[in-house]
């Protein structure tokens, strides 16, 4: 940890927060606790995005993940349990085998990460990326962009169909 500046320190804090929140998601016994921990994780990840000079992506992360997906998840939780339930269970099963597998794989992957000779490059100074992303969407990445909208449409229709109640 020598040679760390302030920025690096902040990074470390944010990384810690993220990982602890993720642990909260993984090990919490209450689904609502997990949901809120998830929010924390998302926020932390957004901050990390900022550190990686992806400002637009960070904002998008907050907007969609926290504002969209998380809220949706909470709605789902509310809809699938009795409203009076305070302690909503989120039990785990087979923790030990899961831990074993995860740790094993984790060890291997960590070895890969640490051992590989990543081609490091001096990162350039961060600059706003919004304009560039926008241009890219309507330039080189036009097709994926349009396809993505089609996918979203399909998801939309699918979700509506799936959650529709049969009229008796």
């Amino acid at each position, binding site marked *: 940890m020598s040679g760390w*500046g302030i*920025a690096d320190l902040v*990074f*470390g804090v944010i990384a810690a927060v*993220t*990982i602890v929140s*993720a*642990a909260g*998601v*993984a090990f919490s016994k209450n*689904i609502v606790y*997990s*949901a809120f921990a998830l929010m924390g*994780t*998302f926020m932390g*990840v957004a901050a*990390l*995005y900022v*550190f*990686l*000079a*992806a400002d*637009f*992506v960070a904002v998008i992360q907050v907007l*969609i993940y926290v504002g969209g*997906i998380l809220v*949706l*998840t909470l*709605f*789902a939780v509310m809809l*699938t349990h009795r409203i009076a339930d305070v302690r909503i*269970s989120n*039990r*785990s*099963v*087979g*923790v030990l*085998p*899961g831990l074993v*597998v*995860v740790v094993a*794989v*984790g060890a291997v*992957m960590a070895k890969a*990460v640490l051992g590989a000779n*990543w081609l*490091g*490059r001096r990162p*350039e100074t961060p600059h706003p*990326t919004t304009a560039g*992303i926008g241009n*890219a969407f309507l330039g080189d990445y036009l097709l994926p962009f349009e396809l*993505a909208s089609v*996918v*979203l449409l399909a*998801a939309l229709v*699918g979700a*509506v169909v*799936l959650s529709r*109640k049969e009229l008796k």
Partner: protein
Amino acid sequence: MAVGLTHYLLVSLALFLLGWFCVLTRRNAIGILMGVELILNSANINYLAFSRYGSGAYDGQLFAIFVIMLAAAEAAIGLAIILGIYQTFQTIDVEATDTLRG
């Protein structure tokens, strides 16, 4: 040493493993979905890290945006399915949904 690519990779690895653990062990369907979200986030971090410390182009960021968008779509569908499961089984405990048991 300064914060470099490796650190980011380690962070995403940690998230990935935790997300994986969620997926493997949770009984609540929504819990499993949360795990999936975690995994997707870790992948995004990887993309961006390599984008910044690798080529420096926008490709990684564009991809991350696509991932986020698709994650959203998938979460929507997934939760709609979970609602459907709840309507059928009156529970979202994945252990209960074993009518396809052989």
